[in-house]
């Protein structure tokens, strides 16, 4: 993994770089916020660590510019002040985590691992319920046959499979897949559940989603679908 470290105290930067490299990270070190923005624009990083107090551009400003450019790489902020305002501003500006100085190196390493875990391998890519395997990367389900799913169908089935047997309301399904901004649309949920059931049937699955329009839905297994 590759990290971008923006810390203006050269001694501290050298020490952090050494320890991170010993933990098998490749590290690019810069010493001000402007350089951080440039580096972030030129290279792909797995995570970034920014000090807040830096010359030219502080860590929070640099972070805002990076986020505004559409870069969602996880960022951890280091702050010398144990000031709540700094932490709140930093997190709201798009930081994923923060650490106040002085900090223990092992805590920094653990937080970096935590940040990069969520970006990558945290959620299982392949789920299996009954005889049906859902590959979320390929957006396909297979049993006896295989068939492809649309993006929302994949997320919907993933939601049902990780909550198999539980009764899920139309509202929570809608918010989980279609987001919290629009008013709940029970018809589209019903339609997509219908699509999923048809596709499950087409691969001779032994699982099915039961429930009617605007009701609760449950993924049940051990069912013969025809």
């Amino acid at each position, binding site marked *: 993994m590759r990290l971008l470290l923006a810390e203006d105290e050269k001694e501290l930067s050298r020490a952090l770089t050494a320890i991170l490299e010993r933990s098998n990270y490749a590290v690019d070190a810069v010493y001000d916020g402007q350089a951080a923005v440039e580096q972030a624009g030129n290279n792909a990083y797995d995570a970034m660590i920014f000090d807040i107090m830096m010359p030219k551009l502080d860590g929070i400003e640099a972070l805002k510019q990076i986020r505004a450019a559409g870069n969602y790489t996880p960022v951890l902020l280091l702050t010398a002040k144990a000031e709540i305002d700094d932490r709140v501003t930093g997190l709201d500006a798009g930081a994923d985590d923060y650490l106040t100085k002085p900090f223990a190196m092992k805590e920094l390493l653990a937080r970096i691992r935590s940040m990069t875990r969520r970006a990558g391998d945290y959620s299982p890519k392949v789920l299996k319920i009954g005889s049906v395997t859902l590959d979320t990367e390929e957006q396909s389900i297979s049993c006896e046959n295989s068939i492809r799913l649309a993006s929302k169908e994949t997320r919907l089935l993933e939601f049902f499979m990780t909550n198999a047997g539980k009764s899920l309301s139309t509202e929570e399904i809608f918010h989980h897949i279609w987001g919290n901004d629009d008013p709940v649309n029970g018809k589209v949920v019903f*339609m997509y559940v*219908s699509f999923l059931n*048809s*596709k499950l049937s*087409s691969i001779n699955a032994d699982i099915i989603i039961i429930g009617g329009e605007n009701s609760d839905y449950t993924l049940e297994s051990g069912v013969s679908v025809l």
Partner: protein
Amino acid sequence: MPGIYGNYAPVLEEIKDEMMKRITAYTAEEYQKTGMKIHEHLIARVKSEDSMLEKCQRKGFPQTAQTALRVMKDSIGIRIVCSFIDDIYANIAYIKSFPDCRVVEEKDYIRHAKPNGYRSYHMILEMQSPHADIDGNTPGKYFIEIQLRTIAMDSWASLEHKLKYKKHVENQELIVSELKRCADELAACDVSMQTIRNLIHNS
């Protein structure tokens, strides 16, 4: 003119035409009832002399009328291409209702797709005819192979056919797996469109 089908070539044409007439008839009947066409394309052919000769040889059989009419069951071939999956099964129900036809073999590659992604419904019928057949039966018995597909399945099958007949293709393995992915995506469209049609009809 004696060929691989011996004296039976004209009978084959007649049987093919009779089946086509029946399919066209129930299609018109359905159209009267629902205003919908139960198939989009209907093609029929008697397998050409060359194709049948080649097939007999390829399968290791003597190139005789006996092989062509009794061992091979696709001397008469009909392909029905439909818009929706349910239309396929509607056609099958009609065909199975003909009292002088017996289903000798059927394979549902729609519910049980082939590993390469191929989907289709295959039926072999044995149809009775007033003309005697090569074994001396009266009424004579003649085989007809019927393939039923959706438009999407048919497009895919044509493309896959081209691949099979090209000698050397680079990245064969990759192409085969990508073709399968397409087959699964097309199947997804077929299933979704059928679902949409059902939702429209049920509302």
